[in-house]
């Protein structure tokens, strides 16, 4: 990280910005602590989010490998598991309790710590000031706090892995009453409290970040950068932040009530319970109430994960097709529509909880409506690619892979959105396949696309392309090999969260398939380690970036020096004269946003 900072950073950043004051000579005050640890520079905070997210991704991915070992090879024992996990894997076989803990933590880690903080935390921080033309976030201090709350939350969640009774194990949705009663399972003891406290810290972090993103986008755009000239990345981050700011507090309410139920004897979610033959005194609560509060966040959360990937893919597809994005306004409008609908569909997660079927009908309708903006986006991505002058960089491949996964995962969403079909499909592997493809892997592809594309801006070096291509092909083929077969298992009724299918006559036939899935998932996991190696190796040893605009891109981040200092532009912030997608216009390959409109230019 340190060796690349001296290319242009120190030399030019001491420029005095006469108009804006306060900015001169800031490099002189930087120490190791203020630059790398308690940094207020949005670019450094972005890298902190990214690297923390990567560590979490390795942990969360490893967990899935561990429980896939159990699912694929239920008869086998792995003595090394006992060395690794101690009493959680006696005799080399996962303890059933710990299996649930692994599934729960896999979900929690991937959904929140990797695909929320690691994805939107990284790229909102990195790209918003650079692409709207601001020196930093509206409040760099709150931005720093946002990372450190995330760090604190990470420490608490990580420590929960090491407590005697194990981490939370009631599923990532932590439905009460299971999660509310310590006697109910070992994962509902201290691990659950740590989960809730950690998530409370996480919510604070997400809110501080979101506030900053919104006010930076709305208030700190450079001269000429009207909202309709914003790159689609920024629009996506904007809607992501709005979703987060409006939905996370509701989860916080739900979590607070759950903490009270657990520790202070209230009965918000609890009623008429008998645990281990003991009648609990709790009266008058409702477990469904928690589900409403949870999914009011939980559903927008999947768009919090997905929208940044959509925005970055749009940008990368257009740049590397050397074509304007097809239907810019339609892209913005469909993002907006998705953001609105995100708040109106939460109950489709609750079709089989006794929801009024009449009410279910409305939620079916609203859910299926999401197909409309989604289809608009897919159409526009494909038409952007259509007859483009495509450069197949690793970033571009991942962006195309994102579109592919979004289509295949989105189609199964139409199945699941029907409350009638859901009676059969709910809680089966069909659901697992659907959301892993459309939300998990697709967003991961968006994130990889972003890392490969903006890595030169982050570190002033390129990632290794060959490793990038290997990473891409193994991951895309592997992802389909893992999740495609799960659709069949799900249609056959194979339920999720089961520890061992070999004792069920009806699911025995899937033994070989499960083994195959587990085998592929191990290979895909190893391929991700290749990416991690590529990432860290390239920070110090990667090929150096020599031009400021290596991809021939239009957006403002490529007008900064190769290694921008704190404040981003050594001189004045460039003025914007056009939208972000003037590719292949008037015979020019690309026209960056800061180029004034020429007299001979066609329609503008």
């Amino acid at each position: 990280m340190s060796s690349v900072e001296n290319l242009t950073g120190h030399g030019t950043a001491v420029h005095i910005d006469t108009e804006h004051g306060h900015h001169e000579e800031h490099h002189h005050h930087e120490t190791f602590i203020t630059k790398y640890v308690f940094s207020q520079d949005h670019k450094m905070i972005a890298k902190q989010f990214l690297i923390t997210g990567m560590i979490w991704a390795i942990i969360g991915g490893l967990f899935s490998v561990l429980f896939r070992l159990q699912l694929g090879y239920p008869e086998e024992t792995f003595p090394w598991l006992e060395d690794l996990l101690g009493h959680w894997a006696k005799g080399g076989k996962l303890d059933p309790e710990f299996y649930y803990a692994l599934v729960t933590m896999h979900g929690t880690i991937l959904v929140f710590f990797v695909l929320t903080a690691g994805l939107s935390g990284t790229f909102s921080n990195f790209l918003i000031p650079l692409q709207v033309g601001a020196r930093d976030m509206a409040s760099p201090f709150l931005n720093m706090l946002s990372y450190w709350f995330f760090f604190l939350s990470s420490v608490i969640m990580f420590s929960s892995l090491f407590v005697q009774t194990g981490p939370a194990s009631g599923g990532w949705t932590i439905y009460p009453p299971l999660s509310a009663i310590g006697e109910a399972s070992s994962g509902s003891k201290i691990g659950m409290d740590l989960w809730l406290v950690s998530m409370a810290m996480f919510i604070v972090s997400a809110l501080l970040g979101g506030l900053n993103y919104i006010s930076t986008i709305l208030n700190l755009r450079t001269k000429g950068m009207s909202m309709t000239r914003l790159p689609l990345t920024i629009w996506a981050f904007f809607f992501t932040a709005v979703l987060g700011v409006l939905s996370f507090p509701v989860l916080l309410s739900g979590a607070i009530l759950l903490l009270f139920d657990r520790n202070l004897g209230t009965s918000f979610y609890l009623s008429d319970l008998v645990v281990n033959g003991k009648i609990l005194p709790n009266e008058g609560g409702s477990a469904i109430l928690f589900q409403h509060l949870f999914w009011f966040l939980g559903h927008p959360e999947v768009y919090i994960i997905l929208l940044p990937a959509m925005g970055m893919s749009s940008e990368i597809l257009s740049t590397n097709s050397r074509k304007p994005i097809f239907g810019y306004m339609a892209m913005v409008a469909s993002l907006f529509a998705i953001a609105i609908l995100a708040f109106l569909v939460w109950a489709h997660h609750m079709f089989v909880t006794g929801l009024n079927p009449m009410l279910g009908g409305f939620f079916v309708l609203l859910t299926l409506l999401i197909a409309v903006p989604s289809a608009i986006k897919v159409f526009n991505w494909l038409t952007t690619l259509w007859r483009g002058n495509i450069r197949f960089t690793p970033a571009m491949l991942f962006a195309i892979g994102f579109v592919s996964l979004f289509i295949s995962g989105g189609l199964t969403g139409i199945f699941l959105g029907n409350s009638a079909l859901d009676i059969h499909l709910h809680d089966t592997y069909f659901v697992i396949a659907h959301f892993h493809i459309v939300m998990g892997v697709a967003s991961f592809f968006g994130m990889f696309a972003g890392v490969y594309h903006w890595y030169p801006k982050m570190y002033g070096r390129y990632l290794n392309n060959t490793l990038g291509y290997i990473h891409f092909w193994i991951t895309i083929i592997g992802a389909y090999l893992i999740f495609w077969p799960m659709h069949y298992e799900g249609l056959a009724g194979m339920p999720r969260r089961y520890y061992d299918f070999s004792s069920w006559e009806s699911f025995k036939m899937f033994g070989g398939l499960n083994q195959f899935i587990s085998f592929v998932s191990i290979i895909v996991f190893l391929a991700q380690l290749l990416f991690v190696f590529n990432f860290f190796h390239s920070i110090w040893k990667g090929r150096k970036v020599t031009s400021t605009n290596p991809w021939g891109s239009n957006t403002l981040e490529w007008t900064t020096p190769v290694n921008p200092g704190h404040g981003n532009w050594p001189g004045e912030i460039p003025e914007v004269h056009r939208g972000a997608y003037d590719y292949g216009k008037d015979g020019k390959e690309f026209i960056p946003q800061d180029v004034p409109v020429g007299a001979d230019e066609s329609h503008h």
Partner: protein
Amino acid sequence: MMAALKIDNSGNTGRQRKMHPHKFTLWIGIGSILMMFAGLTSAYIVKRNQASWTSFELPKVFWLATGVILVSSLTMFLALRNIRQRQMARYRILLMTTMLLGIAFVLLQTFGFVQLWKNGQTLQSTVSYSFLYIIVGLHALHVVGGVVALVVMFLKIFSTRQRNYSAVPVEVMSTYWHFVDVLWIYLLLFLLMIK
């Protein structure tokens, strides 16, 4: 310290700025806090429509607390007016009064809860009281947050290192303070009308 790396973002847009970014951030934050209370109050409504709901009485001392927080809003308003007119001595006194009134509000509410608890209306007694404790308690926590900010602001006046006559932090503070005031009035009416 970290402040050495201050990046001045103001004035880098060509447009007429309507609002300071910090103030804008606060407004979005207020939206976010509102969503939290919306979550709690809608959970409350859902629960109230189910069987076994028991009604409750608010402690009388809450009315006094309401008066106190209303007066504190007034003193906050006057403090802002005085710093704008560079009446630093008066500003200081008014800020301190607001702070003390804020503390008084929290103490009065605590007193109310102690009374309830002594009457056997504890946190665990019924769901309605659980909600009362949590909703009112979370609001009080937001007031405490405001008081802490006021204390910091008050101490900064006496800092010899830097003199600051900028009204912006005070504007942000006063917006937040009026917000917790209005939020309390809303919660009070909510708890009175739907119980």
